[in-house]
């Protein structure tokens, strides 16, 4: 009897199965977290932590690495969405917003750099770690804003500052790679040309994709479903192109989003809500991020990791609290904004990944410190952001279905509109 129609042993896992399992497990973890009044993201990440040892026991560790494609897609969607929310005109109208963005980024950089240097980390390494520390996780802030249905100045400003500091972080990291080149004794041409190629190429790619989106958008009816498909397709393509061209996915996708925002006021592209569909990728993004974080990093990093986290948090708070009140924000709002900027996640890992890919031998210690920082911030960050939005009074109140059915006590009808 010929049994070749049966699958061969051992069974091999496939991407669809992996994606499905990660998705469902992540969703369940998220709901458990929600029951505990924690942000769903914390649940997704913890599921990731739990999956990692299981995966390596089942010998599918490498598959998890290969599942990076989902991470890149998820991150691409996040960065595009964030770029689209970044309104340069707003930064012009309210200079204090741009100023607080620059202040919190620079202070985070400065304090982390100082702390790491003081602990004896080499300047260039400390510099790169500090540059990575500037970035706030866009995915966390965006997802918490969605989950809590937060609306208001703190939410809007947090998202703009996240876009700004992600941009600054990737620019500074790119510039520092020039020094890495130099340190690696490559010729000066490469040290200059490589960052230049990353900047110019990524911006050009973002601009070209936005132009293409605008052109295609004009050809089809202005209906949200069609434009959603168009945008999602082009975001995927842009991620792929950026990888093919060895460009910066972060810069390219942020630029794509920013250019797509108003295509020079022609408004050919409908501003579609990427929310529900991109959540599928976001969940997987967080689960895989969690799974890819070696908890052993703490041992390697030691106290340096806590110096890193503490200096970063201090920088972000100080920067925001010093400038935001000048722009008319209340103290409460400034503190909430500082808390909202704490999360650190896949963007930091991607930056780290970019540096490590160039020079694998470059600093085991650096990697451990940043990863240990990310692990803590994966858990503390979402809680801080959720707290911030609530503290500012911007989260939607939880509905009380039963209370709403009871007639109010006391007096006759009161006026609504005068």
């Amino acid at each position, binding site marked *: 009897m010929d049994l070749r129609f049966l699958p061969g042993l051992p069974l091999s896992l496939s991407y669809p199965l992996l994606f499905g399992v990660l998705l469902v497990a992540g969703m369940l973890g998220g709901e458990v977290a929600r029951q505990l009044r924690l942000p769903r993201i914390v649940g997704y990440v913890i599921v990731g932590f739990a999956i990692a040892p299981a995966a390596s026991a089942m010998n599918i560790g490498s598959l998890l690495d290969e599942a990076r494609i989902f991470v890149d897609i998820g991150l691409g969607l996040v960065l595009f969405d964030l770029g689209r929310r970044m309104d340069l005109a707003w930064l012009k109208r*309210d200079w204090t917003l741009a100023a607080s963005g620059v202040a919190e980024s620079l202070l985070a950089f400065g304090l982390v750099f100082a702390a790491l240097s003081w602990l004896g980390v080499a300047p260039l390494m400390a510099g790169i770690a500090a540059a990575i520390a500037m970035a706030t996780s866009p995915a966390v802030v965006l997802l918490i804003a969605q989950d809590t*249905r937060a*609306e*208001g100045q703190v939410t809007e400003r947090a998202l*703009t500052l996240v876009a700004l500091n992600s941009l600054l972080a990737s620019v500074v990291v790119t510039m520092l790679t020039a020094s890495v080149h130099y340190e690696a004794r490559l010729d000066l041409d490469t040290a200059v040309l490589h960052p230049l190629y990353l900047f110019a190429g990524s911006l050009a790619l973002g601009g070209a994709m936005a132009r293409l989106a605008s052109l295609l958008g004009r050809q089809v009816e202005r209906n949200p479903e069609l434009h959603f498909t168009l945008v999602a397709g082009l975001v995927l393509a842009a991620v792929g192109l950026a990888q093919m061209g060895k460009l910066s996915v972060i810069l390219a996708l942020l630029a794509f989003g920013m250019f797509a925002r108003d295509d020079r006021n022609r408004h050919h592209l409908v501003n579609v809500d990427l929310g529900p569909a991109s959540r599928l990728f976001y969940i997987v993004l967080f689960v895989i991020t969690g799974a890819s974080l070696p908890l052993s990093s703490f041992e390697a990093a030691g106290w340096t990791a806590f110096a890193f986290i503490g200096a970063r948090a201090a920088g972000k708070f100080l920067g925001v609290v010093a400038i935001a009140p000048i722009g008319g924000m209340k103290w409460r709002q400034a503190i909430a904004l500082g808390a909202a900027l704490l999360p650190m996640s896949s963007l930091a890992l991607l930056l780290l990944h970019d540096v490590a890919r160039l020079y694998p031998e470059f600093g085991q210690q650096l990697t451990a410190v940043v990863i240990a920082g990310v692990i803590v911030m994966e858990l503390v960050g979402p809680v801080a952001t959720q707290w911030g939005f609530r503290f500012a009074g911007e989260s939607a109140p939880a509905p009380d279905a039963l209370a709403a059915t009871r007639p109010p006590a006391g*007096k006759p*009808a*009161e006026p*609504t509109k005068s």
Partner: protein
Amino acid sequence: MPLEFKTSEALTFGVELELMVLNTRDFNLTRGAPDLLSRLAKSPLPSEVKPEITESMIEVNSTVHTGFAPLRDELVRTRDGIVDAAGKLNLAVAGGGSHPFHQWSERRIFPTERFLKVSALYGYLAKQFTVFGQHIHIGVESGDDAIYLTHQMARYIPHFIALSASSPFCQGEDTSFETSRLHAVSAFPLAGHLPEVGSWDEFNRYFDEMAGYGIVASMKDFYWDIRPKPEYGTMEIRIGDTPLTVTAAAELAAYAQTLAADLLRHRRLDPIAPRYLVYGYNRFQACRFGFEAMLADPGAHTHIRLREDLMATLYRIQRIGDELGAADALRAIGDRADREANDSRWLRERFQETRNLSDVVRLQAERWRDDPGRAPPKAEAEAAKLRAAK
């Protein structure tokens, strides 16, 4: 205890305008009023700006005026101030009677004691009341005049509906109505019109009876289209959508002022009852068809097209309008009726062009901001006034 009617100078007037607070991304309503109001509190504007039932609305209350031009200028200055403050917060503000695609369930009640109480009593009606109207106050010397004018003005309610209509879309769809906003108002149990009382004393007896049943506590509990407002000493017309420009809002107020002057000068003695028999029908016709509405005329037992009735009225009150300084306003209103160019039409045309309601609201916010242009700085305006005086 009888309601005391505080008298005011006859034919003084002012407006209240409810405005949308929008995000600048997809131009949906957003929870921006608390931040906007606290920013505005630091640099006072000529008009007062207040919260409304949900956190996506603000209300502008003008000061009291006697003429059209000063009211318009005040509204322009107030608008400039609001637009600047909103810009700093990345918010947009717009006129229009309702938001074309927002979901009422996403609205949040502005947490003042009064609004929370309203929300607890009326349930979803409170959030659905996120619609935007213009209220016009006309000063009167006595409660009796307020009652008289309220009854008389009822005949002209369709004019105000057609002229101000700016809410053709609801929940993302074209309603085929010129204004869909009034349905949100009609849902309240005490909506409608003043009962057929002939004097302020008679009204007080009615009010006492209603208060005795424990249904109302103050005048504000009546959600009528037109009502006397004893606290201000005015008659208040509450039927209009907020227009898309402050100029249009001032013009409508000037039309109401001129009509009131005509009605007070040439007192009508015809019976009240028949006009309330046709009131609901005429109101519906105006909401649905605007200037093309066919109005039932209870005196003549005929139907007349709203536009023709409006033109005839404008012709009749022209001279009084000249006296009150409302000539420009009345001319603009006549022109609008003639071209059937109300704001609902403008909104539908923008939808034809863009095929997208987000874009329509964006254009509506741009129109609110830019039409008419910014007021000159105060020093410059005073210099111009001096020059003109010389």
